[in-house]
């Protein structure tokens, strides 16, 4: 199939060759919605949904492959799928949106799973490889500048498996990009996603009536609307833009303003008590994020989206404030049970 395509390129043909896009983690929020976007795009001929569960948005162009990235030697079967379908673009999104207690499994899926996917791409060379990463991996530290650029070192807390696995995945992709020059590697570091239909640790955190904060600390928060997140991935699939990009919404807001706009009230906790408290709540499975996430309530972790605007052409349609308001609109309906809770 890929042979036929490369031959067809030289001949005068009206329609350009159609793309075959493979999505790992296709049943996540991003995967599910991107399948819909890609199905609607003429330039995409085939979408491969790779996950353990069939995404409900799969349509005519989508073919589902049940592949568990935590299994050993999964790279072989992935490579076979890629080769037989003639995949030219891989969107690697098999990451967890929220921290989990199953740390060992998360490590297998995120860090080792990325290795498997990259090994498959080494056997069957693809044109583009897009990785979902997060701005959280810069880490919230007192020595952060107010706007982190892409070349800033990744200093996410070493105690957090959630952050470390994603840093390792990025490192693996950077190695891959050096070794396989034929593949354009795009890494999208997304700010925390908020919106009316998405569910992650942040939406659950803001879902409490009283949202815990640190007394006397009010860091600036930067968010990304879910629509903008999807638009960024669509751009990365369609444009040739190697490198790493911060994908962030316009503007920042103090954490307390975010909480008030979401219709919640802050519950200030003295900061020396916060880590032990967070640790106890996490152990009791009563909180949505492990203790290292307390840092994000104290220090600023805001990324600079100028490079994505310049080189990728990504301009967010929503500001941080509008993302919060959009989330709050849906959440208030969920609160009175006029809207079903969003699926994870």
């Amino acid at each position: 199939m890929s042979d036929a395509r490369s031959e067809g390129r030289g001949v005068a043909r009206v329609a350009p060759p159609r793309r075959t896009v493979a999505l790992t983690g296709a049943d996540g929020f991003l995967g599910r919605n991107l399948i819909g976007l890609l199905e609607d795009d003429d330039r995409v001929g085939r979408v491969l949904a790779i996950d353990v569960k069939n995404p409900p948005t799969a349509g005519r162009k989508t073919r589902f492959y049940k592949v568990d990235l935590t299994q050993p030697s999964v790279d072989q079967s992935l490579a076979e799928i890629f080769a037989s379908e003639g995949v030219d673009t891989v969107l690697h999104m098999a990451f967890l949106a929220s921290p989990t207690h199953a740390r060992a499994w998360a490590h297998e899926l995120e860090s080792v799973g990325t290795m498997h996917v990259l090994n498959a791409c080494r056997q069957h060379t693809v044109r583009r490889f897009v990785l979902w990463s997060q701005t959280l991996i810069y880490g919230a530290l007192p020595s952060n500048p107010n706007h982190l650029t892409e070349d800033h070192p990744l200093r996410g807390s070493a105690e957090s498996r959630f952050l470390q696995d994603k840093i390792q995945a990025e490192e693996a992709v950077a190695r891959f990009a050096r070794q396989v020059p034929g593949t354009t590697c795009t890494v999208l570091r997304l700010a925390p996603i908020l919106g009316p239909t998405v569910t992650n640790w942040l939406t659950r955190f803001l879902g409490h009536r009283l949202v815990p904060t640190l007394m006397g600390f009010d860091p600036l928060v930067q968010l990304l609307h879910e629509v903008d997140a999807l638009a960024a991935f669509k751009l990365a699939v369609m444009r040739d833009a190697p490198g790493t990009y911060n994908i962030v919404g316009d503007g920042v807001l103090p954490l307390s303003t975010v909480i008030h706009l979401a219709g919640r009230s802050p519950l200030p906790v003295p900061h020396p008590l916060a880590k032990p408290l967070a640790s106890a709540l996490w152990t009791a499975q009563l909180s949505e994020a492990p203790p290292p996430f307390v840092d994000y309530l104290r220090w600023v972790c805001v990324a600079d989206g100028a490079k994505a605007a310049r080189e990728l052409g990504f301009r967010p349609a929503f500001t941080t404030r509008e993302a919060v308001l959009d989330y709050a609109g849906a959440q208030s309906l969920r609160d009175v049970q006029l809207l079903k809770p969003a699926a994870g």
Partner: protein
Amino acid sequence: MAKKVLGDDPFKAEPAKKPKATKRAAPAKSARNTVAAKARAARETVTSAAVEVVAESPVEAPIATVVPAVDPPVTGVPADEVDAMPVDVTPEDVTPDDVAPEAIETVTVTAPEPIPAPPFSVEDRFEQILAEASPDLIARMAERLRASEPETSPEPEAPTETAPAVAEVFDVSREMMSSDYYLRRWGKVAMRDRSQDVDDFGLDLAYESRWRGVFDALYDRWWKVEVEGIEHVPSEGRVALVANHSGAVPVDGIVLATALRKEHPAQRRLRWLAEDFVFHTPFAGAWLSRLGAVRACQENAERLLSREAVVGLFPEGVKGISKPFRDRYQLQRFGRGGHIKLAIRTGTPIVPVTIVGAEETHPQVFPAKPLARLLGVPFVPVTPTFPWLGPAGLAGLPSRWKIVFGEPLSMADYAPEQADDELLVNRLNEKLRGVIQQTIEQTVRDRRSVFSGWRR
């Protein structure tokens, strides 16, 4: 099974009802409506492809176009409609043979008639959804609508005719009994004094203007600040104000900002760089950040200067404010010349600023080193008024202040690469330090006394 999965999917089923319910239930919240409008605009601009497909595949068009969920509120389809869709298009049944590439292209080419993009009016759609919805949901929505439209619903009108006061008392007390009431009140109180927008560095204009009265009173009445040479600060363009740092409680940033706002003809806004430990301290960091302070680092300073801002720099840093009282007029080391490198690299003129009076406002009583070590900060200010009087102690003693703006040092003669020339940087730094030290001594000599100011 496929039907169940599709029916449960929130992107397709639920949001279709959302905007309508929002519209009816909360008509006053225009902010939400603008967001919805923007979502619509975003759908059209960002993913125009999603709209194009509508014209292509007539059979599955309703499903194919609504699935992307880029804008769930606008393009949703009710659960029942999804349930009713033909079995042969469910994802399970799509086998490789069914969708050969040729087949897809044929469908694409021979699209007979486009489905009208929004095929129904909002009202019709709403009626349709209501007709298909479960009775339970209808009952709940109707209840919400009644509650939100008092002028059309008969319930509140009847009591207002008979006993309006009683009805009002009843309504208010019922509202006050709801568990949400106090949280909502508290939310409103907390948002009263600030805007919903801050700039990239956290400056909140509404919050800052609320504090202006306090700072103006301190500036005019308490410290009676005198300003000299304000004309050296240009009316536009980037400029770095390099000032001495003194007084154990660093309020000189706020006073310098007030001076520029009150005395400068262009009312320029100062963004000053504050030491790290300010941001380590609870309340202080958040408060100063809303007022315009920025954490001192090269990246932040460069970004501010690239926006043609007036940036206040205190190169003495913590050494300046923690110096003992006897050394109060003695300038400390000016860092490693980072401010000079910054000015050379960005071609920013430097205006040397001398602030006299802060030393006596907040004289350091004793260095509370064990306390500082305990709190994990480099320095805890202990003055006659702070921390004993709490936040009011920030006003300090009523010493007279004088701010002298010197001749600007132009950096236009140096190429940006010369920022790496350590000898040049050191020479310029010492020159700047000499100018400020000289002005301090001159100003102190001219002063009649600490609390009565300068001779006229």
